[in-house]
């Protein structure tokens, strides 16, 4: 209920104020690695790098949310599209050609999308859980092919993947932005290790984070537009009841295929960006485990709700990095957290509004049918 209250308050504000709030939020997100806030910031690991990983998970979660949350197709091989994006970028910018990154990324995205159609066209006719295992198989086939084919760099992977182009001078960029330094209760400005705008180097990860965040914001806006369009409604209708949707004139197969390839598109984009930041990729970056982590992000956050999904992605990517002092026990703690979250909040952390409303309605109907709890007690006595 708290969510609903927050939402109502937000939509109740005048439009300029709302836009201002969003802009402030975005600015805060961009400034986050420079602020180096205590508690939030990760000790021992580069905060900018962690934030970049978070943005990649956010992208992937948004993409997978289209497939799982909106269209209701269980995809356990999403990492396959991510791998196709990353490998396309790797091959085009370093391994077999020498393209600039900005040209390679669109090709990578299209390649992922096409593979989504190729995988989806025959398999989307199989029912829910079979789809899960077929997609799982697809993800593994992609990875094992990369391991076994020399043309794809086999187990050693691909090195020297192109970085994004710098803006301004390579030494100092257009201008330098200092970080903050939090001492014992005092805030200092750290001018010795500034972030150069906009130099994609090897040490400073903040520019990559900005790139990732920009991609997340673009995808988010596209997601909002698609969801509220005819396509979004068709996806939800297909998810709720395929036969009824078909009877109402929704070509469900076409829309499922569209959802699949849109999801693949975003996954390919995330993979391409990841490869460019990392500089090298090998098949170990695309284990089945990642498909599972991506799915966990979507379901834990609340499938079908883009804000919930983002929250889930942030948790899944950030918590293991933040609590590095647990060290070997990280995976154990993560697993226990998944079980707890699942059993305590089965609808996800932030469920979609429709689910909440449906739950409320169901409760009201139950009360009407059976009377209130006290009435029932009295009847029993």
């Amino acid at each position, binding site marked *: 209920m708290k969510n609903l209250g927050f939402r109502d308050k937000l939509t109740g504000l005048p439009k300029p104020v709302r836009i201002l709030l969003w802009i402030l939020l975005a600015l805060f997100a961009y400034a986050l690695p420079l602020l180096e806030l205590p508690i939030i910031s990760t000790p021992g690991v580069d905060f900018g790098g962690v934030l970049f990983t978070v943005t990649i998970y956010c992208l992937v979660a948004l993409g997978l949310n289209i497939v799982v949350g909106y269209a209701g197709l269980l995809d356990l091989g999403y990492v396959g599209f991510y791998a196709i994006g990353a490998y396309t970028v790797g091959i085009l910018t370093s391994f077999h050609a020498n393209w600039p990154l900005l040209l390679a990324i669109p090709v990578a995205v299209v390649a992922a999308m096409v593979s989504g159609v190729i995988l989806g066209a025959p398999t989307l006719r199989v029912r829910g859980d079979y789809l899960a295992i077929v997609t799982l198989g697809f993800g593994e086939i992609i990875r094992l092919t990369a391991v076994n084919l020399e043309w794809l760099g086999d187990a050693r992977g691909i090195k020297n993947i192109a970085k994004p182009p710098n803006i301004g001078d390579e030494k100092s960029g257009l201008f330098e932005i200092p970080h903050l330094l939090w001492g014992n209760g005092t805030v200092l400005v750290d001018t010795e290790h500034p972030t150069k705008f906009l130099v994609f180097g090897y040490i400073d990860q903040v520019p990559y984070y900005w790139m990732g965040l920009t991609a997340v914001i673009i995808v988010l806006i596209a997601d909002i537009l698609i969801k509220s369009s005819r396509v979004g409604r068709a996806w939800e209708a297909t998810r709720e009841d395929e036969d009824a949707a078909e009877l109402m004139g929704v070509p469900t197969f076409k829309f499922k295929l569209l959802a699949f390839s849109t999801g693949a598109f975003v996954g390919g984009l995330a993979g391409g960006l990841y490869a460019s930041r990392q500089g090298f990729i090998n098949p170990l970056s695309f284990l089945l485990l990642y498909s599972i982590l991506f799915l966990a992000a979507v379901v834990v956050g609340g499938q079908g709700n883009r804000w919930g999904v983002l929250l889930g992605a942030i948790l899944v990517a950030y918590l293991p990095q933040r609590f590095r002092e647990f060290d070997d026990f990280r995976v154990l703690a993560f*697993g226990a957290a998944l079980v707890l979250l699942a059993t305590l909040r089965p609808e996800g952390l932030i469920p979609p509004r429709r689910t909440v409303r449906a739950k409320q309605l169901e409760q009201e109907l139950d009360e009407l049918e059976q009377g209130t709890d006290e009435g029932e007690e009295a009847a029993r006595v």
Partner: protein
Amino acid sequence: MNFEFFFNNLPELTITGLAFGAIYALIALGYTMVYGVLQLINFAHSEVFMYGTFATLWTVIALNAADANGIKLIAILIVALFASMALSALIALALERVAYRRLIERDAPRLIALISAIGASFVLAELMGLRDRIAGWFGLEDDLSEYVGKARINNSMAGTLEKPRFDVAGVAISSIDIIVIVAAIGMMVLLDQFVRRSRLGKGIRATAQDPETASLMGVNPTRTIQVTFLIGGLMAGVAAFLYMLKIDTTKYDVGFLLGVKAFTAAVLGGIGNLRGALLGGLVLGVAENWGQALFGGEWRDVIAFVLLVLILLVRPTGLLGESLGKARA
């Protein structure tokens, strides 16, 4: 493509493949039974199997099987089998209690049960992988070093067993392969009869068909679900024992790939269908081994998944279709 090797060794390849397939089939039973009753993928079943392999290994170490032979060795192996079944069944029941029951009772979305199972799977695997550290908390890591040492790498019981091969019409057959195949098929027949004829088995099938009506007819749904997990655990224990006989080596994450394969086998045969699990397992095992001989070992897993995709395209509900509930009494 190595056709010469393939055709020269076809019988051996087939028998080894059948042995692997039988192990897949036994694990697949756990997936298929739970799916039949609850319509959810019990992702943590692979860890149930993994604990079984360790139960076998520990029994073999504790009872000093390396020095035993004859009757004594057979007795030790039987103890190991029961230990493996017991530990696997225990883990399966605990899993049902912790990761599933609350979700089932609240009729939660099925995907969230999958996530809960994934979490439980991480916890179980990591507990095994960190067992040296956990023993360290109690100051036991030196006393138990035989059991908790090498927590993150392969643990082997190689050399404790002789595995004689014998010739049948010029084909060298490993005795272990025969034991594995016969034992697995025997267990499947037993289980099939149990589900078809016994009272509990009827309860399981009734719940699979229609949980609400079944509970109105006096079938306790919670009990039925527990029995389903128990049977899955017992079968995984048998599979774990046979796996250790054949492979000798285990590791804290051994369950993952085997689990994926076994689930593939279950889907291949038609998930929810006991006989389908057997057929799917055997087909998968043989196809893998043949493919491995033809294309090389590195393509083994690719072959398994390509086969799965192809079969699902032709028969979208698996080879035998889904029918735990619909099996004739």
